[in-house]
């Protein structure tokens, strides 16, 4: 039921492959901790791969927003990759679809990060 999270590094970008549910008490806290760890290690180019996230509630949406603002406030970039239809629809009705930088191809997503 709960969320799984794997971390990969590709060309200086940290990809978090998330799967399962991002909800109150399940994925939300894991995601927050993961983002904090990455920022603590100076990894500020973060790509959240949501291809296998089949469920997200308002708490999970809030966590995505918090992750986005936290990373941005530290001079980094957080982008979203491969939204499922449910997550896509939720971001659209909450008007967050235009707030996030949303990609549907991993290679071009990685290329879109600013080079140091």
């Amino acid at each position: 039921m709960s969320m799984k999270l794997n971390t990969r590094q590709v060309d200086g970008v940290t990809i978090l492959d998330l799967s399962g549910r991002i909800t109150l008490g399940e994925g939300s806290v894991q995601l927050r901790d993961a983002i904090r760890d990455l920022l603590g290690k100076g990894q500020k180019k973060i790509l959240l791969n949501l291809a296998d996230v089949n469920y997200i509630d308002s708490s999970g949406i809030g966590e995505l927003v918090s992750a986005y603002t936290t990373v941005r406030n530290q001079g980094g970039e957080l982008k979203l990759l491969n939204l499922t239809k449910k997550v896509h629809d939720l971001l659209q009705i909450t008007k967050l679809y235009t707030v996030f930088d949303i990609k549907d191809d991993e290679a071009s997503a990685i290329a879109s990060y600013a080079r140091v």
Partner: protein
Amino acid sequence: MSRQHGEEEHLTGSKASRITYTLESSLDSVNRVEQTAEQMAKKAGMEEDEVFRVAMAVREAAVNAVLHGNSYDPEKRITASFENTGDSLVIRIADQGKGLDPATLPDPLAPENLLRGSGRGIFLIRSFMDEVHFKQLHPGTELTLIKHLGTAQTGS
């Protein structure tokens, strides 16, 4: 309007039954309420997208009751009732908290609120259900969520 679904669904229509749970203020209760709503919506013949929306709205209402209403207080309970009236699903979620005035909730779509980390629950409930009613219980709040079964079907 004539009945679209044959099968045995007419039984629930003529003999509307209500299931009521009294639950502690925990995330387990939230999950249980969500699952009950999901099963109920499926049984009513809703399509997958609508099942998801109803279950999510009910989950959000239960989260509000447990988290914002009862503040996880072990002394307080939430009650959840589920009823298929034949033409609607009616779900009531009540808490024993301080009460909620929906008029005071900030609009999560306002530009200044878009980047807030919370405050979207009631908005999503309203987006996904056909009717949402708030009732003050003194103490507590009861939300009634209604989904009309007619509009849940893609009319052809």
